[in-house]
C-alpha cells in the first residue's frame, strides 16, 4: 500500500523571539501511509503542523512535498499543492451552511472566472453545479448530507469535527493533516471516526498525518509514530517500538499511561 516518498522534512525548526519552539525535526511520509505525531502538551505538535501548512514559515530547515520545496509558501498555496488540514479548535465557517463550508474548500478545483459569475455566463452555472454535486458527495461520505442546509454552528459537536474533515477532504489533498480529530469525542464517536479515517484513506488513496492525544487510538491505527517533546523529536518507529521506548515513557511520565 505504501509507495514513494511524499513529504520529506529536514531539520525543520522555528524561533519565536529568542525561544526555539521546535528544532531539528526530521520526518518523512510515504505515499499512502498513516502516521501519528504524539507528544505531551506544549511539545510543538501544532506548531509543526502550522509549519507544514505554511501558517508559520520555518526559520530553519526545508520541507519538500511531492519533489518541490514548499517552505515559504502561503497557506493557500500549500493547500493548492495538495496538503490540507483540520484544526484542533474547530474553525468552521460558522454562519455558512454545511454545504457551503465544503464548497469553500472546493473553490480552487472549480475553474469558472469572476466575470462569468458576475455576468452569469453558462460556464458559471456549469461550474457551480459541479461544485454542488462534488460537495454533496463528500457530505454523503461523512453522513452529513442530511444537514446540508443547516448552519455549521448549529451542528452537534461530533458532527462539527466530521465536517472539518469533510471540508479538508474537499480541498483535494494528497496529504491530510488531522489535528486531534477525536478531541472531546466519546469512545463510540472516536471508534466511528477511526473507521471513517481508515475508509477515506483507502477510498481517496490519501496519506495522513495525525496528531492525537488519545494513545489507544494512535497505537491502534497508525503504522508509524513520531514523538515530539520540548520541540524535538525524541523517538520514531512502529507503535510497538514507541510503546517500549524509555525516552517516550519518561516524557509521558505523570501523564496518562500509554495504551
Amino acid at each position, binding site marked *: 500500500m505504501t509507495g514513494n516518498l511524499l513529504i520529506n522534512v529536514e531539520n525543520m525548526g522555528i524561533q519565536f523571539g529568542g525561544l526555539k519552539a521546535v528544532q531539528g525535526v526530521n520526518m518523512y511520509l510515504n505515499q499512502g501511509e498513516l502516521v501519528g505525531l504524539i507528544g505531551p502538551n506544549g511539545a510543538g505538535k501544532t506548531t509543526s503542523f502550522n509549519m507544514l501548512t505554511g501558517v508559520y514559515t520555518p526559520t530553519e530547515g526545508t520541507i519538500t512535498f511531492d519533489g518541490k520545496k514548499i517552505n515559504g509558501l*502561503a497557506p493557500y498555496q500549500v493547500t493548492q499543492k495538495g496538503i490540507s*488540514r483540520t*484544526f484542533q479548535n474547530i474553525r*468552521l465557517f*460558522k454562519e455558512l451552511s454545511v454545504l457551503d463550508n465544503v464548497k469553500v474548500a472546493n473553490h480552487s478545483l*472549480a475553474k*469558472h472566472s469572476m466575470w462569468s459569475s458576475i455576468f*452569469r455566463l453558462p460556464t458559471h452555472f456549469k461550474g*457551480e453545479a459541479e461544485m454542488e454535486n462534488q460537495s454533496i458527495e463528500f457530505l454523503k461520505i461523512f453522513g452529513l448530507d442530511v444537514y446540508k442546509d443547516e448552519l455549521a454552528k448549529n451542528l452537534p459537536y461530533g458532527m462539527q469535527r466530521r465536517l472539518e474533515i469533510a471540508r479538508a477532504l474537499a*480541498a483535494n489533498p494528497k496529504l491530510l493533516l488531522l489535528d486531534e480529530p477525536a478531541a472531546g469525542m466519546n469512545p463510540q464517536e472516536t471508534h466511528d471516526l477511526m473507521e471513517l479515517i481508515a475508509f477515506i484513506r483507502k477510498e481517496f488513496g490519501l496519506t495522513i498525518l495525525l496528531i492525537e492525544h488519545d494513545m489507544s487510538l494512535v497505537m491502534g491505527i497508525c503504522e508509524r509514530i513520531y514523538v515530539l517533546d520540548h520541540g524535538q523529536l525524541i523517538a520514531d518507529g512502529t507503535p510497538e517500538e514507541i510503546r517500549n521506548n524509555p525516552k517516550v515513557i519518561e516524557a509521558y511520565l505523570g501523564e496518562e499511561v500509554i495504551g
Partner: protein
Amino acid sequence: MKKSKVFWGYAVIALVIYAVIQLLITTEVIDMYYKNMLITMCINIMLAVSLHIVIGVTGQFSIGHAGFLAVGAYVSAIITTKLMLPFPLAIFLGALAAAVAGLIVGIPTLRLKGDYLAIATLGFAEIIRIVFLNTDYVGGAAGMQVKYLSNWTYAFFGVALTILVISNFTNSRHGRACISIREDEIAADAMGINTTYYKVVAFAIGSFFAGLAGAIFAHNFYIIQPTTFGFLKSFDILIYVVLGGLGSLSGSVIAAIFLTVISTYLANFPETRMIIYSLVLIIVMLYRPTGLMGTKEITDLFKFGKKGGTK
C-alpha cells in the same frame, strides 16, 4: 431554469417600479423635492451596497468609503466639465478611477486587521480629500462647478447594476471565498483561498460602485466640495450597512432607504439628525450588534421565487 425565472421576476418588478416613478416624474406628480429625494436615495443605496461587499460580505472593516465616492465624483466632474465628454463615459471612468484608487488603498492596507484596517482606511480617505482640497485644478476648498446631468434613469439603473453585480458576485464561488474570509480568515487560507486576492477584489468592486455613485452624486447638484467627502460621509454609509445587518444586502438597501427619508425630513435640523443617528447606532450595537437583518436576506423571509416565476 428555476433560478433564471426568479431573476426575470425581479427584473420585471424593477422595470415596473422604474416606469411608474418615471411616469410620475414626467407628469409632475412627483415634484422636484421628492424627485431629489429619490435620486439621493438611489445614490445612498449604491453606497450602502458597495460598502456591504467590503464589510458585510468580506468582513473587512473600512470606514473611509467616502474617499472613493470623492474620486468618482471629481473624476467624472472633470470629464464632463473640463473635457466636455459625454456623461455616461464620465460615469464609467469615474467608477473605474475609484476602483483603481481602491486597489491602491487596498493592496497595502488589507493585510491589516480589525481596527487597524479601519484606521488606515480612514487615513487614506482623509488623504484623498486633502489632495482634492489642495488641487487648484478642481477648485480647491471652494469646490468645483459641475453640470446638472443626473436624472432618475441614471440613478435607478445605477442601483440596478450595483445590486445585480454585487449579488451575482456574492452568490458564486468567488463570493463564498469572500464570506469564508469574513467567517475565519485562517481557515479560509487553509482551504486554499487566496485571501489577499479576494479581499482586494472585494475592495475594488466596492470602490468601483462607490465611484459610480460619486459620478451620479456630483452631477446631481451644481457644485462639489472636498468638505462633503469627510469622515461624516463615510460614517453615513457605514451606518446603512451596520444598521441593515452586516452581511445582508437587502438589509443595507432597506436601511439606506429608511435613513434617506428620515434625513431628508430632518435636513433643517442637522444636529438632531446626528444625535438620532448616533443614538441609533449605539443602541443597535449594544442590543443587536448583528444589525436589524443579521446576515439574512429579505428574500429568505418570504418565498419570492414562486411569485416572481408566475409573472
